[in-house]
Every structure is written in structure tokens, then in C-alpha cells.
């Protein structure tokens, strides 16, 4: 299961968070977050509902600035860079939002093609080939000309994933990817994530509470606590399940039965 996820190369930090505090105005959501997301990790951000997982994701993808602290990508400090440098960094991410967030006035093909059109020099025919390939990867071959409102929620999510992968990003971010998917689709998504990491060496960051996925694919993690408003554990979720000193973490990972 997780044996295939063991890194052969030594861990190098891809994203480093130092002393991050996240706040909306005066209301602090989380403080003192310091951890590394290594290259080719499948990194799980977990915690109780409302503890700030999706907010942390927003900080990592450049949508929200931290109240305090630094986020470095391969050594480049994101929030201290110029907007142009930030844009260049953003091209190395792909994001799958919780409900897909497809642009509702464009077809699936147009959705996937947008970043390719804006940021590469491929001609129309090449773009349409790439788009068909990405849609086929997520099991949506043939749905190129459908609008998001014409397909189911699960299919919208998969289309969102195809869009996130359009530029073959170095880092993929997933916000609750298995929410709303049936167990088989959730498993197929897990397998796709593992494949992306193994063949394309993509680093993957996942916000989720789906325990099956966390144990199947996660090899590193951080646990955010809503009460103390800070991180209380980090590391391989399989080891945390049995060995973590903090009872809250073990309770979470064993679905309440310790």
C-alpha cells in the first residue's frame, strides 16, 4: 500500500512554511505553523472541521497573504516576491477546488485549454490534442463540448482535475478531492494521484478527511487543531495512527476508536 510511496531519494523541501500565522483581521485561525513539504511528497493537511485547512491551502496557492511568517518554494519567498515573480511561481501550481470551480460559461475543453492558450505557444490543433489527452486521463474522453452545468458533480471534479493538470505542474493542490465521489471513483482518484507522483514526480498537497485516502496515499502530513489553533503533529499518517503522543490525533486517525 504505502510501500510504493517510500522515497528513494533523500527528502528535499519543496515548500517550507516558517512561523506562519493565519488570521482574518484580528481573528486568528492558526498560529506558529512551521513544517516542510518535500519534493514528491503526497502531503495531507488534516484536522477537525473548521480548523483552517482550506485557509492554509489558500495561503499556499497565493490567494491569501499570511498575517505573519514566510512561505518558500524551493527557496524563493513567495510573499516577499514581486507580482511578476509570484505569477511565475503560480504557473508551477495546479489547483483542484472543492467543487471543481469550472468556468460555467465555457465548455470543458475551453476550461482545460485556458492556461495552455495563455501560457504556451502551441497551435490550436496541438492544444486540442493536449486537452483531449488530459480529459481522457480523468475518464472524461468525449465530453469536450459539454458545459459544466450539463455534467454531474463528480464529473465536474474530474474536469477540474484535468484543468489543474493542464500545464503539467510541479505541485498539485487538492481541496477535499473525494468529497462527493463514490468509493470506486475515490479509489481511482487516489490511484491517479499516486501515478502522477510516481511518473511525473509531482508533489501533491491534499486537504482531506477521508481516512482511507490518507493512509493509502499520504506519506507526510500536518494535523491542525482548532482548539489550540496550532499544529499538533506532523509526519507519516500511518505512523501517527499508532505512535503519535497526542491523543486527539490518534483518535482522529482511528475514527474515534483508540
Amino acid at each position, binding site marked *: 500500500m504505502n510501500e510504493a510511496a517510500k522515497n528513494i531519494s533523500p527528502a528535499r523541501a519543496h515548500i517550507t512554511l516558517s512561523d506562519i500565522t493565519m488570521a482574518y483581521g484580528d481573528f486568528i485561525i492558526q498560529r506558529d505553523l512551521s513544517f516542510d513539504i518535500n519534493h514528491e511528497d503526497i502531503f495531507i493537511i488534516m484536522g477537525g472541521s473548521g480548523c483552517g485547512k482550506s485557509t492554509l491551502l*489558500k495561503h499556499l496557492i*497565493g*490567494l491569501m497573504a499570511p498575517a505573519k511568517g514566510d512561505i518558500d518554494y524551493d527557496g524563493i519567498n513567495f510573499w516577499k516576491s514581486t507580482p511578476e515573480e509570484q505569477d*511565475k511561481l*503560480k*504557473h508551477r501550481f495546479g489547483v483542484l477546488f472543492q467543487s471543481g*470551480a469550472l468556468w460555467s460559461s465555457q465548455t470543458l475543453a475551453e476550461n482545460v485549454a485556458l492556461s495552455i492558450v495563455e*501560457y504556451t505557444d502551441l497551435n490550436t490543433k496541438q492544444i486540442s490534442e493536449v486537452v483531449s489527452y488530459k480529459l481522457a486521463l480523468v475518464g472524461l474522453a468525449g465530453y469536450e463540448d459539454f458545459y459544466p452545468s450539463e455534467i454531474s458533480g463528480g464529473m465536474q471534479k474530474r474536469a477540474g482535475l484535468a*484543468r489543474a493538470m493542464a500545464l503539467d505542474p510541479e505541485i498539485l493542490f487538492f481541496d477535499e478531492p473525494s468529497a462527493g465521489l463514490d468509493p470506486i471513483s475515490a479509489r481511482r482518484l487516489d490511484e491517479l494521484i499516486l501515478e502522477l507522483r510516481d511518473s511525473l514526480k509531482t508533489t501533491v498537497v491534499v486537504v482531506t478527511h477521508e481516512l482511507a485516502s490518507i493512509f493509502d496515499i499520504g506519506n507526510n502530513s500536518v494535523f491542525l487543531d482548532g482548539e489550540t489553533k496550532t499544529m499538533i503533529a506532523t509526519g507519516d499518517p500511518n505512523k501517527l495512527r499508532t505512535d503519535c503522543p497526542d491523543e486527539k490525533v490518534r483518535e482522529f486517525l482511528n475514527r474515534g476508536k483508540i
Partner: protein
Amino acid sequence: MLNVIELSSHASIKLDLAGLPEGVRRLLVLATAVPQVKDTGRKQGSKNKLEKIGEDALDFMRGAPAALHFLGEATLALVQFFKGKAQYRKSDLFLILQDVGPSALPIVTLISFLVGLILAYMGAVQLQQFGAQIFIADLVGIGMVREMAGLMTGIIMAGRSGAAFAAQLGTMQVNEEIDALKTLGISPMEYLVLPRMLALIMMVPLLTLYGSIVGMIAGMVIAVSAFDVTVFEYYNQTIRALDMRQVFVGLSKATVYGVLIAYSGCLRGMQCGRSASAVGEATTSAVVTSIVLIVLAASILTIVFQALGI
């Protein structure tokens, strides 16, 4: 029961629940399992009327920096457009142009015709007392071209397009579609707001011109049918009354209104909260803001043109 539990825990009195039925006991255990959140960060609104007015005023002032920021970004996006470097889809621009322009012709025709009729009829009743019915042509011509066509078209477009833009952008905000654009490094100002602004800047003056003509035709209908003016007389008098200055004033006002409507609609859309009711609020606010700004602009421009002697 929950109140009793809370009271007893505060007073450190031990509570024995054994006397309650099993089902009630289990529900109480469930209800007290997750401790109550003490600081949700939500401020309590004040009950005092005077305080509330003060707070509303402060909220309004706090909105000002955001509005100015938006104005600045919109201007930057326009600059990028003129440099030819703006990131937007031409097909989007054409679709919006069609929605904003030709699709609005029926309602602009209707209202301009009505306004022309009203101006003509009310003016004629007074002018007739002096045998000066021919001046209906001047009244309607200058009235429509200089002021009324622009104002009416502006208000129509505020309701039609200002609301539409706020609703579209607001819904996109709710669905995280705008966040998705941002994470791709695409500026929502250039991709979404710019085409809408360009469309209104192009279409409102054209619709105003069209509305003026329709209004003058309505005036002619009244003058010819009820006040003994011939078509030829009306036409001639109109030509004599109008000159390029009136047209210039009317069209510049119309352009300004177009900018203001696009600004209000897009601003409220982008500021939209993340729920369905927020989209409704954004739409309402867009229309109200547009109309207030249009009226302000009309007053200021009237004074300016008066001072310039145009």
C-alpha cells in the same frame, strides 16, 4: 435541561442524571460532547439606534479604500488594453457587446419614445398659449440630445447590464471561479471586468444617439398630430436648434455613465459574499450605486459644461 447543566457546572454542583429516561440522557450527552466555541470572532451588532447609524457610516467609509483600489486596477487594465497586452477572450467581448448593445434596443426604443412624447406634450401645452408650438422641436431636440436620452439610457443600462454584471461576477465569486482564475495568474480585472467596461463605453453612447433620434421622432408625432406643425417645419426647426455642442455634451455624458455603470456592476460583483443572498445584495447594490453615481455625474458635468460655455 442544557441550562441546568451549564448552571450547575459553573457553580461546581454535581448533577445526577440517573432519574431521567435513557433516551433523554443520551441526547444530553451528545449535546454537551463538543464544547461551546467561546470566540467565533463575530462582532455583536449594537442595539442603540444612534450607534447603529454611526457604525453604518463607518462601514461606508471603510468601503472607500476598496472602491478606490478597484478604480485604480480598472484603469490599469484599460492601459494594458491600449498597449495590446490585456489577457481577455475576444469572443467574450463580442458576446457581451451583443448583450449590452443590440439586445437593449427594444427597451431603449420604448422608453426614449415615451420620454420624447412626454416632453413634447407637456411643453406643447404651455407653448400653445403663446402660439409658439414650433418650439416643441427645440424643446424635444435639445432636451433629448443634451440630457434626457443619456440619463434614461443610463438608468436602463444600470438596471439591465449593471445588475447582470454584478450577478455574473457575484455567482462566479460564490463558485470560486474567480479564485481559480487568480491561481492561474490570470488577472480577473483584465479577463472579466475589462470586456464589460469596454462594452458599456462603446454601447451607451451609441444607444443614447439612437434614443435621441427616437425621442425626436416621438416629438414630431405629437407636434404633427395634435399641434398643427408640419413634418417639414418640425424637421427644419430641429436642425436649426441642434448643433455639435449639444451632441458633444450628450455623448460625453453618456460615455461617463457607461464607465460608471460598468464600474459599479463589476465592483459589487467582485465584492460579493459567498452565498445566494449575497448575490442578491450585490445586484441591488450595483443598480443603486450606478444610479447614484450617474446622478452625481450628471450634476457635476452640467455645471462643468455650463462653466465652459458649451
